[in-house]
């Protein structure tokens, strides 16, 4: 169902090993990442530790390093890696003919 997904733009608008932000009125921003392998992921833009902007971190492998204290967050599960404990909610992503679609309900879940 098309209504379940939000079209946010072209895949190549997201830099490889970089990210872009989707703003949500009344909720947390969503960070959309593109890994070195070209896969696209979306997460709440908020580190579980001190709420750093994950979209501003360095993307490496399947993880992003938070810019505030260098926690590594898995792009696929949102879980903190290594010794740190915590989890950032993920948002399901679909690629359709070069367009990036993110799951509507998960995106808007933060806009309570």
């Amino acid at each position, binding site marked *: 169902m098309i209504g379940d997904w*939000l079209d*946010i*733009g072209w895949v190549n*608008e*997201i*830099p*490889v*090993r*970089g990210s*872009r*932000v*989707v*703003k*949500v*009125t*009344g*909720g*947390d*921003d969503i960070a*959309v990442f593109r890994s*070195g*392998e070209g896969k696209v992921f979306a997460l709440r833009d*908020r580190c*579980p530790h*001190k*709420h*750093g*902007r994950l979209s*501003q*971190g*360095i*993307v*490496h*492998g399947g993880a992003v*390093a938070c*810019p*505030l*204290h*260098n926690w*590594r967050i898995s792009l696929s599960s949102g879980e903190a890696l*290594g*010794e740190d404990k915590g989890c950032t909610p993920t948002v399901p992503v679909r690629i359709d003919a070069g367009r990036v679609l993110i799951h509507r309900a998960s*995106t*808007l879940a*933060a*806009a*309570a």
Partner: protein
Amino acid sequence: MEHQTIPACGDDTREHLVVVGNGMAGCRAVEELLARDPARYRITIFGAEPRVNYNRIMLSPVLAGEKSFAEIVINGQEWYDEHGIALIAGDPVAAIDRAAKTVTTRSGLTTGYDRLLIATGSDPFIIPVPGKDLPGVIGFRDMNDVETMLEAADKGGAAVVIGGGLLGLEAAHGLSLRGMKVTVIHLMPTLMERQLDEAAGWLLKQALESRGQTILTGADTAEIVGASHVEGVRLKDGTTIPADLVVMAVGIRPSVALAREAGIAIGRGIHVDDHMVTSDPAILAVGECVEHDGQVYGLVAPLWEMCRALADGLVEQPTGYRGSVTSTKLKVSGIDVFSAGDFASADGTEDIVLRDASRGIYKRVVVRDDRIVGAVLYGDTADGGWYFDLLKRGEDISALRDVLIFGQSFASGGGQADPKAAVAALSDSAEICGCNGVSKGQVVSCIAKGAHSLDALRGTCKASASCGSCTGLVESLLALTLGDEVQAGAKTVCKCTSFGHDDVRREIVAQAMRSIPEVMQKLHWSTPDGCSSCRPALNYYLLCALPGEYVDDQQSRFVNERMHANIQKDGTYSVVPRMWGGLTNPRELRAIADVVEKYDAPMVKVTGGQRLDIFGIRKEDLPAVWADLNAAGMVSGHAYGKALRTVKTCVGSEWCRFGTQDSTGLGVKIEQATWGSWMPHKFKIAVSGCPRNCAEATIKDFGIICVDSGYELHVGGNGGIKVRVTDLLCKVATEAEAMLHCAAFIQLYREEAWYLERTAPWIERVGLAYVQSRLLDDTEVRAALARRFFHSQSFSQDDPWAKRAEGAEREQHAPMAHFTPRKEFA
């Protein structure tokens, strides 16, 4: 970013724990409970102060200007959010209804509880003299008191501190540092008589008097005088001391009013058993408000022990609290005082005393039946922890008796000071971090769980995260626990490779590598695209090796260097335009003022590097801010970069009667020659016009001190956590030579230091003699280094702000999409 509170589910059937008191005891008890069972209770905390939980014992450093309030916060709002704790701050609980099991706040909010924890702490004791209620008479107990003191200190004038105990002396020290004329009035004949003996008290008095405080011992307050505000303090001997501020720090009383009203049994404090349960089994109490086994405590260490026993009881694994032996440290910088246990001479006790008058050291250990019962140390408190540990464990010291007073390193053999051996010998229960109540065992177990750095430990068990005085101990524990692993870890760039920094730099040049993926391929990186440690390092090494050719990889830059501004903890940025040599003019100031107003920046601050920092700029607004600053002729100050930061100058011979050369002019020339250069780490320069060194050139990476006959060039200084004074590189006769040496030194550092290594540790590692040999032995080598620097500069001196203000890399600032949820989602 707004906070989300995790709402308690409607059908949350967990027992409700209500905590009265949002201070050190209340929150620590909750932390201990959460560590044992994070989900067992629904928790609500009431606090009288409109603030989050902060470290009350660190108020003295805040007053002294050594810490900010933000730095003493123990748990910020996110901690409450994460654990689903409801915090009601600024609305104190006014009544407890034990029959209905509810509490009611001053504003009338009523909440039910299953278990109630009273952690109301203590109140300052106000001596009942006339005038005690005048405005300007305060205690020293909370952040409001500190704010009142800071306001008073801003106006200058005189302060009287009544009480020469721990708290009073820390208040006096802070007020004195803040510029007030301070008099301490103390009833007893010696200062801190409950913690110090007469000899140490006397040494302390001497030290404080030499710092400009007036100390009156044996002085009894008769009256506080003043019409509508305090004007002075009159003593019983008739003397009147003028005062604009009076701080009462004569002692504290457990805060028991709430418990008394509720009919709970109290003595001096609220009576509790070994599990911190009061006379009402549903109500617990902890901290300075309680009386346990006839004792009340006013120090922080017993509180940690009480909270552990309390939490064990709450999860039904009772252990029990058995009372505490306490030790004291005075937080007055530069004066080291330690005391523990009982040091009153009595039958059967022996004193072992060491005095070293020339070094101002006094040590006294009190022994009874071959066991330490007390210790007083003045001037050298390094062994305080060891004595305290022996005391608490009741260790038989007969074998050490003869050497005990010389301290642990001597007593444990050899007489050679070995801090590692001393730390190794501590027992697991020995306290390492007094501010946060962390034992050696807890630090070691945190290291074992993967906290392999000081930062990691500060983030996990909080050891050395507050006042930092135990940093050395914590580092020793890291070295002891990890042993060779620390050594091995330091050798490689990161976990992605087995090569060290020097190897990687050498191979990049030798094999003429041109990109990060190429380096990773040829040097067998173990990860597909590195990590946040190696990628920025490789990007820099390539940039340095291939000036003008290498294409910078933005995705391998830290956020600040990518955004050309400094990210702040709330996700906004701060912006610092360059001010050459610290000079500015009306046009620049006007443009900055306009930016502040136009973008609603909440704060502008003069930086230590002589320029202005504009705070609170949103990411989306950065390009427009830069365009406005560019229009007034200003460029990026690189305050965000591993790059040349500032060139600090004094006014020099143009204005100053002492100036020997044009230090300002030289500083401007150097900044214009060096700005925009990327470095292994940040790099600061200063030029002072005479040896009075007003520009603080001797704690900079490169410092010039002008003298009549030329220019002294200093290198490798650092004013950070570990202050390092520069080494003298050489002296030159002309400005041109000074600039050439500066360029050559920077290039040597750029080419040879490891990424994220400041000049200070770099010089410590390679040695000053090496740096001098490269720069001074052969003029051609020096000239070649300088030429390479200026070649590199020809590609790097374009303002990164200007390009972005014109629209480059717009995607860094603009969101990809923006959604507004429809009503049904809102």
